[in-house]
């Protein structure tokens, strides 16, 4: 009981232990903040990566594969699969005014179908909130401009307004928002006057024959109906979305007549239309690997029944983005190790402060021994003291760290308003906001580590106090 009394007295009457507690608090908070921000960063990237690619992809190389609609339907029947949609993948370039840009990934999609596989509509950047126009996204999903007459579904008004006299109105295109870069402000937002909606864009792709030969490039004039912001820079920098049938035709993957390569004459009959990929979304609650396995087996079965389907392979979004995600994961690990090493400073600090207290309290330790305290008892006073300081530091540090993480963006706005300084530049990091995410299991582990560290710091001084010779201590007046 006397230990409790002494610990509480020493806590209230001494300043030094409060410094130790502050050191533990700061270290705990620091490690929690770093791990949370890095973890949030990773999580945000994972979400974005998944958003951009769906769960599972089936692919057969650049020339695609036939019977895609049938395969997609078959897959959708699997209990592990929520939805599946075919897409066409091409590559080429785009021209906006005089600006020519490489378009590494041109995707031909059916927006409504794609939306079942990944949250496509929500990645459309322009909407009511930043365009002051109704139904911008709903229209874009039909490849329509926001100001098109809804009754005039073929969009002829757009072409008329443009006055170029073409009879067929241009079809829609949705480039990733970073395809035309350098438009973001400090807060990571794009001004609506910079929107490309309504702009004419020329898309050129190079069709490829099934044998792998290149054909004449195909160019179309299209009109931008929206822009894509998935949140993953790689995707938004490189992806361009166009209607499925348009790209299929441009890439020569449609139901064209079969041509004799020798004579160049049609030999009768038509090619089976092809798609480049099928994107699959796992059913809710089914984990990725289980779904992947089911899709892989079903695909193999399907291919076995169709001799013209060869070279099909499947992969998950994690496989696809492995390098990027691993890089961030490693970075998180590295920084965590670094900050853990810094936290050793806290241990040394606790040890030093406790050592000073032991020196200062040498006589009192002798007195306690004289009135009956055991060596263990003396050691326990200091260990208990270390425990209390560790607990105090861990609790305060966790509270501080968590509060800090949850208010990072507000804090940053304050700093920006007061000093014009942003620690997080959305221009550089691409995410609009610092991820505010705390993994409570990790936080608890860190707090536990803080308590253990304080105890470790108290250990040597406690052993020292226990070893003191009481007679020697009492000689001091």
């Amino acid at each position, binding site marked *: 009981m006397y230990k409790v009394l002494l610990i509480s007295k020493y806590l209230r009457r001494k300043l030094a232990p409060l410094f130790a507690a502050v050191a533990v608090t700061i270290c705990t908070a620091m490690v929690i903040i770093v791990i949370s921000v890095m973890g949030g960063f990773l999580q945000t990237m994972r979400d974005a990566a998944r958003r951009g690619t769906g769960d599972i992809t089936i692919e057969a190389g650049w020339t695609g594969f036939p019977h895609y609609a049938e395969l997609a339907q078959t897959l959708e029947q699997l209990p592990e699969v929520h939805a599946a949609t075919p897409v066409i993948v091409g590559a080429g370039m785009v021209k906006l005014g005089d600006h020519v840009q490489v378009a590494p990934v041109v995707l031909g999609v059916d927006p409504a179908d794609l939306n079942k596989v990944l949250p496509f509509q929500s990645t459309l950047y322009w909407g009511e909130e930043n365009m002051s126009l109704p139904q911008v996204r709903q229209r874009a999903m039909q490849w329509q401009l926001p100001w098109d007459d809804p009754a005039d579904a073929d969009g002829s008004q757009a072409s008329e307004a443009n006055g170029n006299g073409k009879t067929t109105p241009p079809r829609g295109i949705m480039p990733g928002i970073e395809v035309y870069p350098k438009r973001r402000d400090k807060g990571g937002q794009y001004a609506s006057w910079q929107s490309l909606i309504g702009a004419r864009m020329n898309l050129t792709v190079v069709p490829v024959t099934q044998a792998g030969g290149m054909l004449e490039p195909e160019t179309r004039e299209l009109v931008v109906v929206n822009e894509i912001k998935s949140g993953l820079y790689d995707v938004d920098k490189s992806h361009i979305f166009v209607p499925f049938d348009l790209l299929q035709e441009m890439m020569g993957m449609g139901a064209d007549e079969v041509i004799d390569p020798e004579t160049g004459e049609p030999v009768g009959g038509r090619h089976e239309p092809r798609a480049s990929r099928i994107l699959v979304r796992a059913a809710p609650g089914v984990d990725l690997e289980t779904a992947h396995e089911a899709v892989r087996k079903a695909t193999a079965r399907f291919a076995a029944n169709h001799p013209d389907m060869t070279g099909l392979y499947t992969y998950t979004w994690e496989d696809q983005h492995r390098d990027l995600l691993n890089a961030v994961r490693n970075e998180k690990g590295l920084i965590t190790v670094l900050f853990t090493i810094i936290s050793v400073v806290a241990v040394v600090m606790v040890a030093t402060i406790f050592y000073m207290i032991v020196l200062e309290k040498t006589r009192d330790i002798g*007195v306690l021994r004289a009135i009956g305290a055991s060596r263990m008892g003396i050691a326990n006073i200091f260990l208990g003291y270390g425990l209390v300081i560790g607990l105090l530091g861990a609790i305060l540090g966790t509270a501080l760290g968590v509060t800090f993480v949850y208010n990072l963006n507000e804090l940053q706005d304050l700093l920006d308003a007061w000093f014009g300084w942003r620690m997080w530049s959305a221009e550089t990091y691409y995410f609009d906001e610092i991820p505010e995410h705390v993994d409570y299991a990790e936080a608890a582990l860190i707090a536990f580590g803080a308590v253990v560290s304080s105890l470790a710091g108290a250990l040597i001084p406690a052993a020292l106090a226990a070893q003191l010779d009481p007679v020697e201590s009492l000689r001091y007046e």
Partner: protein
Amino acid sequence: MTTTTTTILRTTSLHKHYRLGDQDLHVLRGVDLAVEAGEWVAILGASGSGKSTLLHLLGGLDRPDAGQVRFNGDNIFSLGGSRIDQYRNRYVGFVFQFYHLLPELTALENVLISAMMGRSVFGWPGVRKSVRQRAVQLLTQMGLGERLRHRPNKLSGGERQRVAIARALINEPRVLLADEPTGNLDADTGRQILALLADLHKAGQTIVMVTHDQRIADYADRCLTLERGKLVG
């Protein structure tokens, strides 16, 4: 005073050396002492003669190089590790020249801490009330009824020594070991402390007191002198 006397504390040929480098200081050279229950023994000796050393051995605070200290017939140094802590806590009470109170604690807490020792956090609430009552009673008896919540730095030397005596007595020890209890006090205050010890002695308390002052030693029943490492007289 008492007709049937029992020896409560006995030392047999107690030796103590201090070694400083290659110097060997043989402080106690075979001390034989028997303290009867209820007796007040004074040990006289010049400064550096080893009086404090002897008292620390009697109280189990230090270990002799040879010889024994027997309490009620048991050699205290052959007791197990925690038993000797218990011995210091329950059976003897130390009073020092420089009071040695804990500065962070109030007068009352300084007295109570000795009673808390040996009681766990769970054992304490059960006895807290009665122990506290006894502590208050002891301090009141010593004229410190108004000073319970004062910390040592707010007390005079005489008051501090009385708190120290109350602390030594709280566990009702069989023997009170006092090392120059008046050594740091003026003559008047010293006399008050001695009067207090005399009262305790009258009530049956066994006291072993160390001093270098013959006039103080005169308060005791019996006076022994430590000379060249041995007790004489």
